[in-house]
C-alpha cells in the first residue's frame, strides 16, 4: 500500500441533465490500485464510460461517488474527488498530466511554443524549455521544418503527436491518456509506445484508454474492464 500512487475506490460518475430532469450514469463502482511505473488500461466498448472515468480522475468531471486517493510528491494522500480546486490546479501544474484525444491549442502559437508552454508556465527558462520540447518533437518524428508552424495546419496524426510531445515534455508522476495512439500510423504508434515505456521505466504511473488491443497487451500492467451492461442492468 505504501508504494501505491493512485487508489481508485468505488468511483462513479453520473450526469444530471436539468433540462430533461434526467440522470445519465457514465461509470459505476470502479476500483483499482496503481504503483509508480505501472499502467492501467481502461477497456470496454464505446459508451462504457472510459473517457468519463478518466475525466473524473482528473476532476474535469465532478465524481458522483467514491474516492480517488493520490499520493502526492510530498507524501501526503489527496482525495482528488473532493480536494480543493487550488490543490487540483497545483497538482495539475506539477504532477498530474492529461493527454486529450484532440489537440486544443491556440492556432497562433508555433509548434515548439505549444510543446514548451507547460514548462514555461512552470517557470522553466525559455531556452531549456525549447530544448526539451525539441527533443520530444524529434523523438516523435515531427519534421524540424514544421516546428515554426502552428499545429492548426497539421494532419490529424501530426497534431496528435504534438499533443503527446507536449504532455510528455511536461512530464509528471501520474499521466492520464485518452486514446494517445488513435489516428496514428504504425511507425508513429511505435514511437509513442516507446515514449510511454520510457516514462513507465522512469516511474511515471499512467491510466490510459487505447483502442488497439495489441497496445494494451504490450503496455498495461492492470486491465480495468468497463461494461455498458452494468448500466442497462441498473436501468
Amino acid at each position, binding site marked *: 500500500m505504501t508504494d501505491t500512487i493512485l487508489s481508485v475506490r468505488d468511483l462513479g460518475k453520473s*450526469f*444530471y*441533465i*436539468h*433540462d430533461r430532469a434526467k440522470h445519465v450514469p457514465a461509470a459505476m463502482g470502479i476500483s483499482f490500485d496503481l504503483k509508480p511505473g505501472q499502467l492501467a488500461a481502461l477497456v470496454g466498448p464505446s459508451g462504457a464510460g472510459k473517457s468519463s472515468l478518466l*475525466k473524473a480522475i482528473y*476532476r*474535469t*468531471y*465532478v465524481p458522483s461517488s467514491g474516492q480517488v486517493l493520490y499520493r502526492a510528491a510530498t507524501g501526503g494522500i489527496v482525495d482528488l474527488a473532493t480536494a480543493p*480546486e*487550488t490543490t*487540483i*490546479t*497545483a497538482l495539475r501544474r506539477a504532477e498530474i498530466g492529461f493527454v486529450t484525444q484532440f489537440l486544443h491549442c*491556440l492556432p*497562433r502559437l508555433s509548434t515548439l511554443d505549444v510543446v514548451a508552454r507547460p514548462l*514555461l*508556465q512552470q517557470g522553466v527558462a525559455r531556452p531549456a524549455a525549447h530544448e526539451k520540447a525539441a527533443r520530444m518533437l524529434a523523438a516523435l518524428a515531427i519534421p524540424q521544418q514544421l516546428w515554426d508552424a502552428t499545429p492548426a495546419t497539421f494532419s490529424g496524426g501530426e497534431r496528435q503527436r504534438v499533443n503527446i510531445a507536449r504532455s510528455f515534455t511536461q512530464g509528471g508522476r501520474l499521466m492520464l491518456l485518452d486514446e494517445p495512439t488513435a489516428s496514428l500510423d504504425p511507425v508513429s504508434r511505435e514511437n509513442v509506445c516507446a515514449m510511454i515505456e520510457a516514462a513507465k521505466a522512469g516511474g511515471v504511473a499512467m491510466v490510459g484508454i487505447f483502442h488497439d488491443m495489441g497496445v494494451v497487451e504490450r503496455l498495461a500492467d492492470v486491465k480495468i474492464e468497463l461494461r455498458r451492461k452494468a448500466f442497462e442492468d441498473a436501468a
Partner: protein
Amino acid sequence: MKPILDVENLTRIHGPGCPACLEVTGPEHDTNICRHCGSVVAVADASLRLHKGEVLGIMGESGSGKSSLVKMLYFDDKPTSGRAIFHDGGQAHDLFALNEAQQLRLRDMRMGMVYQNPSLGLNFDISAGGNIAERLLMSDELSYRAIRAKATALLTRTEVTPARMDELPRNFSGGMQQRVQIARALSTGAPLLLLDEVTTGLDLSVQARILDLIMELQEVTGVSMLVVTHDLGVVRHLTTRTIVMKQGRIIEAGLTDQILEDPQAAYTQQLVSSAL
C-alpha cells in the same frame, strides 16, 4: 497558494432597500427587483477568494452583477454591505473601511482596471503616452525622461507603436485603445488586475491578439487577475477557475474545465450549451 483578495458577502442594492430584498430576489425568483420596495439587487452575498498569481473568471449574462462586483472592488461604486480584504505587501487592507485617500492610493498604485469601454479607463483629452505618464506621476515617478522611457517600454510591450504615443487615444482603433488601457493598468506594476469584458465588441482577430497579450503578460509578471466576461472562449483561454453569476448571486464555482464540461447548476448547463 496565498490569497491576494478575499471578498466576503458583498452586496449592492440600488434603491431604498428593505429587509426582504435578498429573500425575494435571485435565480430561484428569476428577478433581481425586490417586489416590496422596488430596489434592484445588483450583487447579493457574493464571496470569493483570489490567490496570488491566479486568473479567476467571473462569467454570467448581462445584468448578472459581474461588472457591479468588480466595480466595487475598484472603488467605482460603494457596496451596501460586505467586506473585501486585499492582501498586499504583508498588509491586509479592509477595502471599504479605508478612507477615500487610502482607497485612491491603492487604486492608483496597487490595482489596475481595464474597462470594456476605453473611455472609462483612459483620458481621451491627453495623448496615449500622457495617459500612462499620468498614472506613473501618481505613483511618485517624477523625472520626465524616466516617465517617457517607461511609457515607451509599456506601449511597445502592448504592441502600440511608440511613434503614435503623442496622439490622442480617441483617434485610435478599439483594439489599440484597449492596448493603451492595458499598458496604463500595468504601468505601476500592480499585483491585482481587474478586467471587465476587455475583448467584447472587438474584431475576432483583435480579440485573439488582446487575449494572447494578456496571457503573456500574466505569465511574465505573475499578476493576479479577475476576468469578467460573458464569453466562454475568454474563460477557457485565460482562467483556471471560474465563478458563474446570475441575478446578482454566485450560483456555481469550480475549475474552468469542469465548469465548461460538467456544469452542475441548471443555468450553467444552459449557458454552456448555448455556445456557438
